[in-house]
Each structure stands twice: as structure tokens, then as C-alpha cells.
């Protein structure tokens, strides 16, 4: 699948290599998927060696073991977007300086960075508050989504009766119900925000996991029925494992959504004080026309979002990949 891509990218790689001054051999290693193509002949020889059982696609068996884990990071996939980013920032800074746009309209990246460092003392604690809201809401959404979807799959009637309300919960714009929730929970703003973020994050987990639990292989379901498995056995040994990839997909979506939910709730609540989140800082900065500070806060929120996505992706890879390994270890 990637083969044509490699041919296209190869000249670009050489050019970039010469540009950075590391010579044509740069980057040292291609990402994994390119390997069979490049070292095809060698791999073939390695494969036909007698060890029949050890022939499973174990990671990096054909990879030259140079012990340079760093080289993973110096490949095109990582370098190219970084270069684009740097060019963009430089262009931005130059444009701001040349056109002389005032700071309160568009600050340059250097000013934003300076502001970030200067206001770290107020911004970072706010970020932590947002992290708390997001994490609590996300965990609540995960647990409740999983439990509700399990209840749903126990009876078609329960699912049919309640699923529409889950959809309604999902389609109501969070901005419009957030004030209501904040009024109801006025004594506990933190809880109010968690509830708002939970509402946004709940549905993807629910719908994905329900789909996953229902998509167990029908032959296997027949088999379980034939061997008179009870509900619990079918759930634990068949439905939950089948739902795992779907559940993980739901987690990845909901992770980002709970952050969005938290930010929206903070905006609507607009409360300051000790427990003000990062969105409140953005709000305040905009009132005061502190645009560089807004940008700095924005960077923090975005960074948090990326962090959430990356860690959930890693978790997903780990769980779905480890699945097998953990089973093997249980054997003896």
C-alpha cells in the first residue's frame, strides 16, 4: 500500500537530508512499514531460516539493531511537520513585525512565549483545575458509558426504551444547558462543570461500546448458546472482548470531548476565584484585551488536548496489542 508513496517520498527525503547537512543517508532508518521494501532480499533470507515457529511477525525482527532509539524520531514523519511548524512561526513573527499590527490584535509568537513564561504562575494552576474537571468527567463518562451499554445489551427492550434519551442528551447543545446545570449545582461549581463535560463525553463511549457488545461474531454467539453459557459468561468471555476495539475508539473521541465540555462549562460559568480554570483565564484576558495572554492560555489548552489524545492512543495500542501477550503469560 505504501510502496508508491515511498517512491514519491524518496527524492524528497534525499533533498531534505542534504538540506539539513546530514548527507544522503539521512534519516538513518525508515519507519517500520518501509522496511520490507528496502531490505527485501535480506529479510527473505532471514525468513527462510529453519526456525519455523519463531517466524511470527514479532516486532522489529528484521530491523538492524543499532540501539539507536533516537533514530525513530529523526524520520520524515516527524521532521516534516516540525519544519512546517517552524516556517509558519517564523512567517508569523516576520509578518507581525513588518506590518506593525498592534499587540492587542495579533501578537507575534515570541511575545506569546514571553507572556506564557511570565504568566506561568497564574496560568498553570488554572490549567490544572481544567485538567481535574476533564479527568473526573472523562472517568465518569467511561465508567457510566460502559455500565449503561452493558445494561443495554442485556435486553433489546431496555436499549430501545432508553437509547433515544441518550441521543437527546447528546444532541442538546451543551452551551444552552450549561447555565441550567450551573444554577442547579450553584453550591458546587466544580461538580457543575464536571456534569457538563460528562454530558458531552458520555455518548461516544455509550454508543461505541453498545455497538461493540452487539457485534460479537454470531457463530461464536451460537456456540456459547450451544454450550449453555449464561449471561455473565457470554458477557465476560465473548461480548466484552469483542467490544474492546470499539470501546477504545470511544475513549479516544471522548477524551477530547471532555476537555471541550470542560472549557465550554467554564466559559458559561465565568466564575473566578481560587478554582478558576484555564478557560476563565482566556475569558478574563479577552475582557482586558490581553491578547498575548489569551494566546498563551490557548497554547496550554491545545497542548492539553494533544496530550490527552496521544496518551489515549498509546493506551489503546497497548491494550489491543497487549491483549495477546497478557493471554500468553497467563498460560504458564
Amino acid at each position: 500500500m505504501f510502496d508508491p508513496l515511498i517512491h514519491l517520498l524518496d527524492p524528497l527525503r534525499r533533498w531534505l537530508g542534504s538540506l539539513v547537512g546530514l548527507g544522503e543517508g539521512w534519516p538513518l532508518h525508515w519507519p517500520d512499514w518501509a522496511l520490507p521494501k528496502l531490505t527485501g532480499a535480506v529479510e527473505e533470507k532471514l525468513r527462510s531460516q529453519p526456525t519455523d515457529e519463531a517466524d511470527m511477525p514479532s516486532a522489529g525482527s528484521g530491523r538492524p539493531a543499532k540501539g539507536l532509539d533516537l533514530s525513530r524520531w529523526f524520520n520524515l514523519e516527524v521532521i516534516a511537520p516540525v519544519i512546517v511548524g517552524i516556517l509558519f512561526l517564523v512567517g508569523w513573527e516576520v509578518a507581525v513585525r513588518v506590518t506593525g499590527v498592534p499587540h492587542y490584535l495579533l501578537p507575534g509568537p515570541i511575545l506569546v512565549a514571553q507572556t506564557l513564561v511570565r504568566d506561568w504562575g497564574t496560568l498553570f494552576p488554572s490549567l490544572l483545575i481544567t485538567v481535574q474537571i476533564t479527568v473526573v468527567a472523562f472517568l465518569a463518562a467511561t465508567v457510566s458509558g460502559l455500565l449503561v451499554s452493558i445494561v443495554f445489551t442485556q435486553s433489546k427492550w431496555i436499549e430501545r426504551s432508553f437509547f433515544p434519551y441518550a441521543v437527546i442528551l447528546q444532541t442538546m447543545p451543551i452551551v444552552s444547558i450549561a447555565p441550567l446545570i450551573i444554577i442547579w449545582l450553584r453550591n458546587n461549581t466544580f461538580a457543575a462543570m464536571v456534569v457538563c463535560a460528562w454530558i458531552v463525553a458520555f455518548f461516544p463511549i455509550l454508543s461505541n461500546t453498545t455497538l461493540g457488545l452487539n457485534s460479537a461474531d454470531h457463530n461464536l454467539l451460537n456456540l456459547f448458546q450451544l454450550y449453555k453459557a449464561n449471561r455473565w459468561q457470554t458477557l465476560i468471555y465473548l461480548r466484552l472482548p469483542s467490544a474492546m476495539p470499539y470501546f477504545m475508539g470511544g475513549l479516544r473521541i471522548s477524551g477530547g470531548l471532555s476537555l471541550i465540555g470542560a472549557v465550554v462549562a467554564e466559559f458559561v460559568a465565568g466564575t473566578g476565584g481560587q478554582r478558576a480554570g484555564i478557560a476563565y483565564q482566556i475569558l478574563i484576558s479577552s475582557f482586558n484585551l490581553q491578547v498575548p495572554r489569551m494566546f498563551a492560555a490557548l497554547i496550554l489548552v491545545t497542548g492539553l488536548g494533544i496530550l490527552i489524545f496521544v496518551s489515549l492512543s498509546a493506551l489503546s495500542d497497548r491494550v489491543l496489542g497487549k491483549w495477546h501477550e497478557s493471554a500468553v503469560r497467563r498460560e504458564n
Partner: protein
Amino acid sequence: MPAPVITLNHVSKVYSNGTVALQDMNMTIQEGQFVSLVGPSGCGKSTVLRLVAGLGHLTTGSIEWGKNLEKDAPRGEPKLAFVFQEPALMPWATVMDNVRLPLKLAGEPKPKADRDVLEALQLVGLRGFERSFPRELSGGMRMRVSIARALVTKPQVLLMDEPFGALDEITRSKLNSDLLELWQEKRWTVLFVTHNIYEAVYLSNRVVVMAARPGRVVADIPIDAPYPRSEDFRTSSLYNNYCREVSARLQEAMHGSAQDPYLRPPSAGRLR
């Protein structure tokens, strides 16, 4: 004198969408018989197997189980095992865990279960692959795992729905002779669905031909050839004659049902 194990009495099955999958089907299978069901696609072979396995409700009629069988279920059926057309393995579990599944569901203690699993794997020739995952096996090996899973409960009745349909000819004939050897040793009662006439004749001591729309039995041909059947049997004239006969009945069944299903009474094509 062998006793009847499964008796289908006037069994009809109408699916909820109105499809008449089976109409007034009668069939008796004796203990220790290897019976093959052949017939055109959609004639209700899988439906028969599913009904026998209790995976669906009869519309009318009944299925009775032999009297002198060791029963393990409230429905009064003997120990059944089902092999599907696809291996139907759990991709997240090792070969060992896949085969152990029926025992785990029955709540058997693990040390005993493990012994049985190893024995079943030995039977299908998969010792040494206990810790492999289904994705690491070939199609034929996956089918063997599926068969091992069926055998691990030491069933009395084995239901197989085109188990080798997706395999190449070489693997298929290897698994055929392996299966036959095991059957002679264990003396299960086997109900085997296939669309391959040669396979049916080679394996069975009875071939039941079905016709479609509505699904019914049109011929019941005993294969009187002694076991063990070697590879030579596949080239003998006896074998060829049987194949020709089954093939002729099958042709009749297909034309009879495809062209004028209502011109002849349902029992006219039945040869007993």
C-alpha cells in the same frame, strides 16, 4: 442393532420473513452413523443442523432423541458439538484458550480441562501450537482448532456444517481422512453438511439428498462400502458409481424444484 439417535418427525421451519426453509422433513439417524446432507444452496441444510442443535425454534413437528443415550441437558439431548463453516475462533485467545472454552463454560476445573484440551489437540495434530493465536495459523490449522474445540467435550453427536468448504482440495482430503479415522475410533454419530458429492460419498455410510423451496428430503442413499476407506477407495468403481448416483439425484432435485415445484406432489420425488 443400532438405536435411533435423532429422529425428525414432520419438521417444518418457516422463518419470520415467510421463507419456508423446511417442509415436512422426516429423517432418522442411527447411533454411530455418518450421515451427509447434500443439496442445492438454500435448501435448508444449515437450518436442519441448527434445529437439531437447538439453535432455533421448530415451526411444527418435533425432534426426538434416542432413549438409551447419556443425557446432559434438561432438553434431553445428548452431548452435542457443532463445527461451523468458518472456524469461529476468538481472535484474542490462544489455541489453548479457544479449545478450552466449552469446558470453561461448563465450569470444569482447570487442571482436568487442560488435560482434555491437550488430548483434543493431539487428536487433530496440533500439539505444539497451544500458545499460538488464531491469526498465526493457516486456514486448515484454524479449522483443526475448531474441530478440537468440538471434540474436547467428548460429544456423542457431532454436527458439522460444511466444515471444509473454504479449504483447498489437498487440505480438504487430508482432513477428510483424519476425520474418518477419528470417527472409526470414537464412534460418534455424525451429521455432516457438504456441497461436495465426492466428500459426502467418501465419508458417509448414508447420503441424504435435499431439494429446495421448500426444503425436503428427496433421496436417501446408503453407501455400502466397508471402513476403513483408504485413498484407493476414491478411485474404485464402487465409489464412482455412488458418486454418479448421488449426482443424478441431486440433478433431479434441482430441476424438480427449480422448474415446476407445484406440479408434482411433495412426496413424489422421495426415494426410500
